[in-house]
């Protein structure tokens, strides 16, 4: 809802950030796969509900992005920030390209022109900025939940 409501106000040259994708990728890098996949699916489902795209496009794209991002789980130092933040760029590009491919497969017209590339790259850069702001929060949240689990 936040993404749907805020996107008209957070646009930069008709491109707005994908908060859910950033959240899913960040969470996937910090947590084991079983703890991630459900959230990824839920996030994709929410995007599908609020989007005019054929249903399922974003659920699939989001699960794929989460699976790919989970490759980095436990491969970074817990305090590492730069590399995880930078990785949102390829994941964002991958997510957009996969979702556009799926849309085309499901019959929606997609114009693979310079405009698409411009939008895809612009969206990736905006998501990078959002990731820089949100990733430390996710690190903190992950450490907090880990402490709780150890305490239990």
């Amino acid at each position: 809802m936040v993404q749907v409501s805020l996107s008209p106000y957070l646009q930069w040259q008709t491109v707005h950030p994908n908060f859910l994708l950033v959240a899913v990728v960040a969470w996937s890098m910090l947590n084991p796969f079983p703890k991630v996949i459900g959230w990824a699916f839920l996030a994709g489902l929410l995007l599908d509900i609020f989007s005019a795209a054929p249903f399922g496009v974003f659920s699939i794209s989001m699960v794929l992005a989460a699976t790919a991002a989970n490759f980095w789980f436990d491969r970074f130092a817990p305090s590492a920030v730069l590399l995880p933040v930078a990785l949102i760029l390829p994941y964002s590009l991958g997510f957009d390209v996969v979702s556009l491919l799926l849309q085309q497969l499901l019959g929606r017209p997609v114009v693979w022109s310079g405009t698409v590339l411009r939008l895809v790259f612009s969206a990736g850069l905006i998501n990078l900025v959002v990731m820089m702001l949100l990733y430390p929060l996710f690190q903190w949240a992950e450490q907090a939940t880990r402490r709780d689990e150890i305490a239990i």
Partner: protein
Amino acid sequence: MVGCAGFIFADEFMENQNRQGLLLAIFAALIILGFALDRLGFMTGARIALQTVFQPAESAVTDAAQRAEKLSEQQQTVAQLIEENNNLKTEANRLLIENIQLKELERENERLRQLLNYTRNNPGINFEAASVVGQVIGSDPNNFLYTIFIDVGANDGVAKDMPVVTHRGLVGRIIQVGPNSSQVLLIIDPASSVNALVQNSRVQGIINGELGGTLVMERIPQGKTVSPGDLVLTSGLGGNFPDKLVIGQITEVFQRDLDLFQTARVRSTVDFGDLSTVLVITSFKPNPFKQELQPAEGQN
């Protein structure tokens, strides 16, 4: 002895009395003299001289008194100023809020006036105003789809495929309806397709959306003249939109002899980045054109 002492006392008493009388007499004489001199105008110089001598002391005392008075006044004034300042701040805040509200009302008034003019200019069409609280209540979460959410739905008489316009022109059509909200597919979305004609030459074509918020008019027959600056309207063909709704203006024409059709780039008259209030044309029922063309049962 006693008599002698009495005389002495009496003499002293009389002497004192005389001295006091003399002093009083002298003072009285001086006062009368001064009064007389003053009346005659001889005291001015003396006064100035005395004032000059005593002026520094007088100033010092006056200054001290004034300082004391000011200090007392300042203590009172600071308290008053603080109170006054608080009152002014409250007043300024109230006026600021009032100003913002008035500006907002002015803008809303302007928008509604434009929409009213538009409805008056099109009396044959029944409009349902879709007033969005503040701004458009949402847009598609994906960057490659151009849809918006508006705050009117089935309860307001809105149905699927109804056209959505502003006073500037065609916005799109309803693709999904909830009880109190609807989703609008904007004409700039690549999935949108509108039958259109060029106002001057009556040449027909199809307006398609492009990523990035631009419009392209396709299927313009070769040999027909279309020029930058021409206005593009809905043609009404296909029954999906009413005719004569403004879509935009041609900015560029692409004509190649080998192609079957010409193509033109169209700039929409609607600013899709600043949509706040839209109209849903509830009286317009899209014509199920294809269903009507289906062959009747038993006919092949």
